[in-house]
């Protein structure tokens, strides 16, 4: 059985900066994953529906707008409400350390990657955290 890791890369909220998301998408593609990119200005509802229909293993949220404390918990909560909390939520962007701690300890996100993280680190994290 040829299993492929599927990842949704999404940009929630009012945030027009998607260079980072596209670089990540490209890196995951080159690591042999199927990457679904949904474009800019997505609502948490749109992201969660896409994640369910596409049956992804991981949702990667890219946020540079500062609204991570609202958007990340909302996505995770909606996944739970839809019985889809087996989908791993990770994120990236300009997120202060205190917020990272709060989001991770609150169980809202599995991992967060800040600017400067090597692409291999993210690829390896996904590969080792997605169950076969």
């Amino acid at each position, binding site marked *: 059985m040829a299993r492929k890791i599927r990842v949704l890369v999404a940009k929630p909220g009012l945030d027009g900066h998607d260079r980072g998301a596209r670089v990540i998408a490209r890196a995951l593609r080159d690591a042999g994953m*199927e990457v679904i990119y949904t474009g800019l200005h997505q609502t948490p509802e749109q992201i969660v529906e896409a994640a369910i229909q596409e049956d992804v293993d991981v949702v990667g949220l890219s946020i540079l707008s500062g609204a991570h404390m609202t958007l990340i918990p909302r996505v995770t909560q909606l996944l739970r409400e839809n*019985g889809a909390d087996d989908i791993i939520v990770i994120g990236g962007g300009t997120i202060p350390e205190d917020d990272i701690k709060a989001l991770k300890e609150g169980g809202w996100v599995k991992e967060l990657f800040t600017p400067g993280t090597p692409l291999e680190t993210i690829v390896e994290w996904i590969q080792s955290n997605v169950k076969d």
Partner: protein
Amino acid sequence: MNNLVEKLLQGDRRSAARLITLIENDAPEKKDILQQIYPYTGRAHVVGITGSPGAGKSSLVDELTREIRREVLKVGIIAVDPTSPFSGGALLGDRIRMQEHATDRGVFIRSMGTRGSLGGLAQATRDVIRVLDAFGCDVILVETVGVGQSELDIMHHADTTLVVLTPQAGDHIQTIKAGIMEIADIFVINKADLGGSGKMVTDIETMLDLSPLVNGWRPPVLTTIAIDHQGIPELWAAIKRHKAWRKENKAGANRERVRRELAEIIQRYLYQLISRELDERFEHLLEKVAERQLDPYSAAMDIIKQSWKGGLP
């Protein structure tokens, strides 16, 4: 019955998505799933959308979906994008143009990588169509990868095939070449505001004047500006006309499709079998051919004779 299949038939989205994954991955339970689903298929109208990269296929699918939803029909969308031959990965970006429908419970969108197939679709496409059919979709829109001139798989899966072109995509010789220009049930000249669309329409109509009609259907040539929704109601009307015409003329070519599919399934099974056997039972023949003591044709006939005599498993 498989629990997921049961829930699929009740319209559960998560189960539909899970089943599609199992089929795409060629999971061991695939055969059982398809066996259980098959009686519930054959109801949806499958529309194929093909054309070159950047012709506006995704935008067209998006606007067409909006139009179809006015009639409160359930829509399934399968959007295929290419898989890298080097990494095996894929960037599936067709959803970007369709996200407006993401939260509409009457629309189900699934992106697929081609995973090695070269005909413009993924190998699993036909069976994924079946899942969405059993899921209760009235119309299934299948968007191929951006194609060139001869990726024609869609004609074997769609009930109505749209070939999407843009103005200024070559001179009139392009319109009389064999291949993709022959598979259209409807021609769509998208981005008609670019200029040159009138000439494109004339070129295609001229080509059609010289083409023999298949059972009396002459493909209409429509112009659209998808992002402005221009020409979309007319396109949906043309699809419905073609559907009615097919029904009237029983133009399903059903037997031919079944024959093709059976041949494909058997071929795939035998191929896997023979690949394994070559390494296990016929290694000595491989060796002989490699050392040029035997030609590959004689070796192949030898293997077929020996396998057939013993009865194929």
